[in-house]
């Protein structure tokens, strides 16, 4: 096999050092271990978030039922087995926060950026392993802080994951705005520190530590996605930190950034004047919109890689994929106002944001079409990772299309804050990104743990999760279109909403089944860490560099010299080759150092094979602009 050459390489410049338990598993500076730490913390947080959602779904489906076990579980928050409205809000808030930040930002990006950036680029580790370790531990502290807020006497933060002031600023406005909110802010501040440390690291590693031959236009799309994600995070998270700090000041030091003209029941008129609650929303969504792409882009990157590998076919339109990632990244900074069409913002601003928002639909559409074309005339291997990737594409299409309604300021009048929005973002962001994450886990599990997951369980996991996710989120479109507002504790008090009770029950049942299916995954994941079948060197017959490292993890990744890269990552099913893949690190005896484009000219199938020369020109231009090597 191709990797034999690398293993045979005898001169070990790799340094052996003794690893204690602490330095190997706890305060590890090895990117592969840190990636596992992120993953397992993310999975734990994900389970907490999932269970929370099942509890509040019970409330929505059977508002008049008493669930004894809830009282056992939650005590005073579910007296007589009936969920307390304040705690309902708290659950919704913490569920959203956990899923958005802890699972889909840190859990997804933290896991796969850490694992793949060095491995796919041919680096021994991250640019700064120490910062990398700090990044995990800040994340860990942040998770603990957030979870601890659930046990506070007045309850966790309860103003929704967006925590709009004045609700979140005034302790007297709702119980959750007391200590729970303070802890929420502390957790988010720690989280931001973690993600900035990580982002700087990712960017510098991508720019500086690629192996010989790994020019930027030979980078796998995963890396491109992580790279843009890190840039987005680096530019937008500090703004959220600013917003949070202002909020802390308003809460504790009597300032009025967000507060004005407020009279509180039982207190009287407050002194604050001159602040603006809408200012917070601008700051929040300046992060918030890029954030949704921070979540989605790594999942898209993973999907590109997994689909190409398992379709045994080059990803269609590599250059277009990169350009659309770039376009999405850029545009995502100037569309935040679409979350604020009806806040009373100047209508002209609304028009501007509407136009910019609908422009972002174009690169999104391009990505979807490119995935479809990649599948077309492929030779699809249905590994669980592949199924989850296809699931992502399906969610991305279904959820992305509703963005076209919401991006339209006029249509948003009716749809804002309704269940339609809930359906939109759970499909396009929630489900899609989670599926990307699952795809990544199934695909790189052999690389992480040196063992294989069980495929059959994976298939059951996929189909049950996929079908139930649609059952949960698809009907929500119709509820939203019928004017059902989100974040309602109960729907029975409004006549009009009673027709949806059946649907609410269906959704809850589907959610419980879908939640149950995750047990298959958990079993499959944890059991096989210890008992799984030993992985082969390159189990998916993939082209990328990470599959040239030894199955057993070693510090420094490659025992000998880091391999050189000879071509792009998506050379699958080349007509001039016997095998249907051609690893990036495998020298071509007949014509080394020649791009596939030149060779394919002489290949038999010339007419159908296109060239990527324009792509190369494009990258040369970018490199010049950004001064990249």
């Amino acid at each position, binding site marked *: 096999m191709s990797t034999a050459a690398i293993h045979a390489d005898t001169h070990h410049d790799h340094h052996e050092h003794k690893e204690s338990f602490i330095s190997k598993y706890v305060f590890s500076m090895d990117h592969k271990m840190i990636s596992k730490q992120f993953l397992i913390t993310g999975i734990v947080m994900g389970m907490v978030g999932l269970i929370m959602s099942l509890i509040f779904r019970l409330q929505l489906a059977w508002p008049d039922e008493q669930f004894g076990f809830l009282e056992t579980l939650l005590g005073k928050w579910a007296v007589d087995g009936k969920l307390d409205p304040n705690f309902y809000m708290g659950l919704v808030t913490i569920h959203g926060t956990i899923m958005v930040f802890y699972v889909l930002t840190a859990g997804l990006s933290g896991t796969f950026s850490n694992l793949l950036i060095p491995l796919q680029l041919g680096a021994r580790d991250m640019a700064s392993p120490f910062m990398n370790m700090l990044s995990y531990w800040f994340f860990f502290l942040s998770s603990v802080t957030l979870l601890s807020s659930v046990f506070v006497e007045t309850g966790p933060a309860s103003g929704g994951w967006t925590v709009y002031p004045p609700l979140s600023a005034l302790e007297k406005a709702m119980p959750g705005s007391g200590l729970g909110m303070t802890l929420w802010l502390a957790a988010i501040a720690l989280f931001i520190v973690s993600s900035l440390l990580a982002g700087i690291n990712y960017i510098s590693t991508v720019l500086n530590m690629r192996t010989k031959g790994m020019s930027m236009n030979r980078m796998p799309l995963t890396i491109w996605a992580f790279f843009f994600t890190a840039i987005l995070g680096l530019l937008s998270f500090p703004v959220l930190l600013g917003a949070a700090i202002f909020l802390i000041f308003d809460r504790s030091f009597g300032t009025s950034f967000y507060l004005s003209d407020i009279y509180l029941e039982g207190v009287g008129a407050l002194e604050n004047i001159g602040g603006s609650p809408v200012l917070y929303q601008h700051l929040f969504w300046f992060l918030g919109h890029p954030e949704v792409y921070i979540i989605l882009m790594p999942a898209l990157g993973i999907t590109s890689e997994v689909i190409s590998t398992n379709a045994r076919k080059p990803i269609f339109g590599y250059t277009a994929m990169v350009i659309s990632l770039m376009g999405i990244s850029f545009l995502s900074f100037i569309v935040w106002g679409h979350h604020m069409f009806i806040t009373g913002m100047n209508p002209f601003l609304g028009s501007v944001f509407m136009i910019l928002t609908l422009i972002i639909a174009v690169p999104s559409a391009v990505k979807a079409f490119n995935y479809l*074309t990649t599948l077309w005339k492929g030779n699809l291997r249905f590994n669980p990772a592949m199924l989850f990737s296809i699931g992502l594409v399906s969610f991305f299409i279904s959820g992305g299309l509703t963005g*076209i309604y919401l991006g339209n300021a006029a249509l948003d009048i009716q749809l804002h804050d309704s269940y339609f929005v809930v359906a939109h973002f759970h499909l396009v962001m929630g489900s899609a990104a989670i599926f990307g994450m699952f795809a990544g886990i199934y695909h790189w599990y052999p690389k992480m743990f040196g063992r294989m997951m069980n495929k059959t369980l994976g298939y059951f996991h996929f189909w049950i999760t996929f079908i139930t996710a649609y059952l949960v989120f698809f009907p929500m479109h119709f509820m939203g279109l019928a004017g059902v507002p989100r974040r309602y504790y109960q729907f029975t008090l409004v006549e009009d909403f009673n027709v949806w009770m059946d649907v609410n029950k269906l959704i809850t049942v589907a959610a419980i089944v879908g939640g149950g299916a995750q047990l298959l995954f958990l079993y499959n994941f944890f059991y096989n860490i210890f008992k799984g079948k030993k992985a082969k060197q390159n189990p998916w017959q993939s082209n990328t560099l990470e599959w040239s490292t030894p199955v057993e993890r070693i510090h420094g990744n490659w025992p000998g010299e880091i391999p050189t890269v000879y071509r792009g990552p998506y050379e699958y099913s080349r007509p001039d080759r016997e095998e249907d893949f051609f690893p990036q690190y495998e020298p071509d005896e007949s014509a080394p150092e020649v791009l596939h484009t030149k060779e394919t000219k002489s290949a038999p199938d010339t007419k159908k094979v296109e060239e990527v020369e324009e792509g190369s020109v494009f990258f040369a231009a970018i490199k010049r602009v950004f001064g990249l090597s």
Partner: protein
Amino acid sequence: MRFDTLRIRPNSFIKKALLMLTTVLTPWILMAAADVVEPPKEFSLANWDWVSILTWVLALLVILVIARAFDIGALTEKITGKSVMSWNNINAWIAIIFIVLSLAGVFWELKYHGQYVLLGDSSSLHGETYDSMFYWTFGFTFFVFVVTEFLLFYFMFRYRYNENRKALYYFHNNKLEVIWTIVPTIVLTFLVLRGFTTWSKITGEVSKDTQDIEVFAYQFGWKARYAGDDQQLGNQNFNFISGTNPLGVAEDSKVEELIGDLKKEVAQLEALQASAEDSTKAWKARHDRFVSTGLHITYPEDYKSLKAKYTDAVSGAYERTLEKDIKRKKTALNRISEYRKDKDFFNGAGDDDKVTTEIVLVKNKPYNFKFRARDVIHSAYMPHFRVQMNCVPGMPTSFAFTPTMTTAEARQTKGNKEFDYYLYCNKICGAAHYNMKIKVTVVDSEAEYNTWLASQAPLVTPAIAEESQKEEKDSKTEMGEMETAMLTNNPTLN
């Protein structure tokens, strides 16, 4: 060659076409079947025996899949001598069954839930434009949805793994990519332009004959304010809000009354402050007595509240709170007296304003809702009218619209005699957010409206003003209650 007997051959155009046709037609056939089983009128999911339907569907699926798998498995086994179950084919088949059934489900849902989409015809003038744009967007996105989702799963089925085939080595196709960049761009441009004109029209200038109504949101409810005979809404300020003046209208007697109350409260608080040291001592003594006699074990609940007061007193939190309250009330007093100096502000326009707990509108008359929020952000959501606007403390917002369908008419079209329009809160605002609504009634004639308005009490009428003042002396205001609570809490005073 192995699977050729079973697989639909790529080059067999007719079979391909047949498959496509079946996929597209199946939903319709299923729907027709559903119509026979259950006539669509008065349809309710509850009437369906869900368990058995789901069981049937699942059973069917399982049987199909298993049958298929064994078929293929057996054949594979015969030829290659390995692997009985072929997940490759199972997954491919589930994919195609999934997309057919889900598209059927989507059509089904459109048919049965379609009647609730946008709650039927709009009840406002701009709503008609809204609805037409909505359906354009729907048509376009639904088409793309069906085609792309179908292709996705069809490809999954069609291009499932086959050892004997090699994937097409195909990197890109500029022409294709340009097409699918340009076409969405054109469609989106069309949608943006329509959106832009609709949005501008909805949010544009308000015509002269529009009537203003103030809609006031608070935790947890709504109030409306109509102008009295002077056709003019009085000024307002959050500092003027009191038990008898919930919207804080600039009206002399109410505001004077508030000033009086505030001054009294400040005096009381200052008295408490003066005796704070004694009070701390008293709490300490009481606490120690409680503990030394062992009462804290017998009465843990009482002890808990005592301990809280004691800690507050000892840590100085009690005094700090007093200080803050005094400062806040003094600030309010200062601000109010500044306003009092401005005779244009207290112009008497608010005296005859009517604060109501229902909103009544006349059909085909333009209104401009002016929103205020007392405490946190709320959102006024009237889905039947395609109206929504946030209510933001400290930032006035508004939404102008013209109702076009009376409540009576809506009752008739919906076939529901109990039906009423409501304005809901649609921005998370606290525990009772889910039940924060106000009835909106659209009447046919100005006369009906006038009768209703006449029945609503104005903020002050000279005759009633005195009476209400007397009443107030008896009943405790909110503030009064708070003070009483504070006083009884003070150990030195009881």
